[in-house]
């Protein structure tokens, strides 16, 4: 009865972050993880995820540029996109009404249940 898991592409250069997400939300979603921000666009085009979670502060290429690249590409433009970042705390995200740098934002320190709730809203 349960539908197929939604696919989420996560871009973060820190493997600990990916490991955490795998443990905390991996049982709910089909996670595609990459620590190579430069390959993110190719990944997204190939995997056709339902949501993209992207870190902001990464070496070589930052989240803002990745976001712009996704917006430029016709295959990825319509995929929901959110920053998953340590720049802001969960309360700051709440104050910003979930808007970080013009896109959706999730604080890395967000408790897992709340994170899942936000992801579900983004997937809707």
């Amino acid at each position, binding site marked *: 009865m349960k539908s197929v898991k939604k696919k989420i592409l996560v871009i973060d250069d820190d493997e600990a972050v990916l490991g955490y997400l795998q*443990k905390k939300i991996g049982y709910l979603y089909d996670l595609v993880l990459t620590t190579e921000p430069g390959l993110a666009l190719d990944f997204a085009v190939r995997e056709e995820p339902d949501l993209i979670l992207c870190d902001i502060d990464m070496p070589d290429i930052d989240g803002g540029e990745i976001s712009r690249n996704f917006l430029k590409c016709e295959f990825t433009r319509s995929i929901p996109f959110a920053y998953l970042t340590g720049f802001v705390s969960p309360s700051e995200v709440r104050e910003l009404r979930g808007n970080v740098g013009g896109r959706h934002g999730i604080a890395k320190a967000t408790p897992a249940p709340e994170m899942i709730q936000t992801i579900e809203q983004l997937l809707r």
Partner: protein
Amino acid sequence: MSSKKHFVRSFCSGLIPKTAFTIGWMAVVAGVLSLSVTAAVTRDRAEANSARELGELLDTVESTVRIACFVEDQTLATEVVRGMLKNSKVLGVAIRANNRELARSYRASPGATDDIAEFSGLVKGGANGRLTRRVASPFNPEQTVGEIVLDPDPAAISQRVADDVKFVGLLLGAQWLVIGGGLLALVLFNVVRPIKIISDHLHRMDAELGERLSPPAGQDRTEIGRLVADINALASRLVAAIDHATEQTRQLQEAKERVDAQARQLEVKNAALARAVQVQEEVERIARHDLKTPLSSIAAVPALLRRGRRRSEEEEALLSMIENSAKRVLRMVSLSLDLFRMEEGAYAFQPKAVDIVALVLAVTRDLANEAQSRAVDIRISGHAPQTFVHAEEILCYSILANLLKNAVEAAPERTMVRISIEAGELVRLSIHNDGAVPLPVRASFFEKYATHGKSQGTGLGTYSARLMARVQHGELTMETSEMAGTTLVLELLPLPEGAVPSELPGAGSSVPTASSATAIPALRILLVDDDPDNTLIMKLFLPSPPLEVETAGNGRDAVEACRRRRPDVIFMDLEMPVMDGCEALQWIRALQAERGDAPSKIVAFSAHDDEASRRRSVAAGFDLHLSKPSSQGEILALLAGTKARCGNTDVLPEAAPTTTVWVDEDLFEAIPGFLESRRTLVALVRQSLASGNRESVRQLAHKLTGSFGMYGFVRAAQICRELEDKHRSADPGWLARQVDALERHLTHVAVRSRTGVRGVSTDNNRG
């Protein structure tokens, strides 16, 4: 006008006119062809006949002319010539004898007006079919005596031929008319008309109403008759196919309507179910919060009243009654909620050392009166003074109470209920009575709502007993027969090797002692709860001095209290008006981080004691989750392990050597690897700091902030956040000290799995 044209066009395109036109046209062509052939043949024959007639004329006169030429008798010759000229086809005749002309005569004609002309015409006529007959001597046929020259009259011959051709043409034409007309009529009547009739009939026929073609009269056995039969058969098959398809469509439509109706019913049921679930959740909420909170207050009152002066025996009995009743109701509420969770598979089993023998004795004591009234004796055999199982006390108590009560009720009067306990690979407890389980319920003994012969039986007792046994990784089985009676066998896990029962689980709560109070450091406590009774009880629990207790009625008041002065420990209710516990926690953490205060130990103090609530509390950033009701002992034990701290310092907050980070069970195994990778990053921070690469310090600190925040290392995340924020402005010494603090914190931090926390006392005893 146009309709007239249309009629003409449609008429012309009809079968009959077309056929008539085609056959008529073919008849005309064939007639013309046959007439021309006949005319040519007739002309040739007529010309041949004329030549033959003229030859016969010459034959007739030859004997007479022979004599006339032999005697050269002009008169006879003239007479012969005249006679020959009576034939209309003869234009002129000359008879010569020995190069002397005996007689010659020409019919007057438009082409010969004088002799010369006649002659020349003769000459001309000779070229045009003149006949010359040699005349032999009557006595010697070899001797020629003269000749007859005959010029035929071409006009007369032509006229004759034309007459003949005209006659034959007329005859043939008439014959063609008769034959062609007959043929046409035959085709039209026998072939075309029946087809036309069938076509018209077919055009008007409604096959679905059962109409069929009938063959035209006299055509029953012809191809047309067979065609009609074939068409009728085809029509029948088509109608049957259409009927079949229509029937199927109708059935499909009906099926669809049925499915739609069922879907609507299902929707209605779903809505009802959703409402039921809502009601259930509401009831659960009431049970948990609204029922448990006041009950825990009631249960705590006797312990408080016992303090101070001595009570009389009667007063003590009343206090015990209040205490026991409140605790029993609390247990029932908790157990009913737990059963629900067990059924949902959401129950988290948290085993401890439980002395099963002590429990059996306690239950037996409770049942003593009932057993006596039924004249049933309870005997316990084959057990050591203590037998520990790895289980939950409340669940074991519940199972035993249920099974033993059943056994006492089912045992015949003046018989015995035997209990035996054997320790082995599993601890095996069997309860036997001489009664047999009635046949109708044997197969469904452990099923939900299966009951027999009890007016107030819910059918949940044995069901929940087995459920609880299984949740504890044990099993509950039953054997029964009329001869042997009934034996229930409960198997439970023994205590794992190496585990030592730290404390005997007692039936009542541990009574606070003066010694435990003296071990309490001087702490500033903030109690946050919207229930004044709860606050009162808690206040009475907390000895002051050494504790300094302040209260707040909701989250906002709590934040204000923290703003005024930093408490060492905060007991925070979760569900409160104005601002709830989680939000207040965030505010307080932010406030203290901003001020550089050491974070207070914030304990979620809630009536919710399920796993999801614990998980939520720890994930939200609470240091601990303590469920209401908690005994004074538990609370004081918690405080005994907390160090007092001077807040507001200018020096860097150093991580307490014994800081504990509570992580979710699922993350626990990943923690060593995580900490190792973080230490590597911290080493990189130090390197970058040494080389003066502040941007690298920022990047690494940022990375650490995010990951520490995620894994619940709040303090570490806080230090890294400060590093990140001040990477450019702060002096290198300060930054280095921050890194030192972080390293120290990571070295000393104790990581605990959150599932180990149910009562704090357990944790403290083990820790």
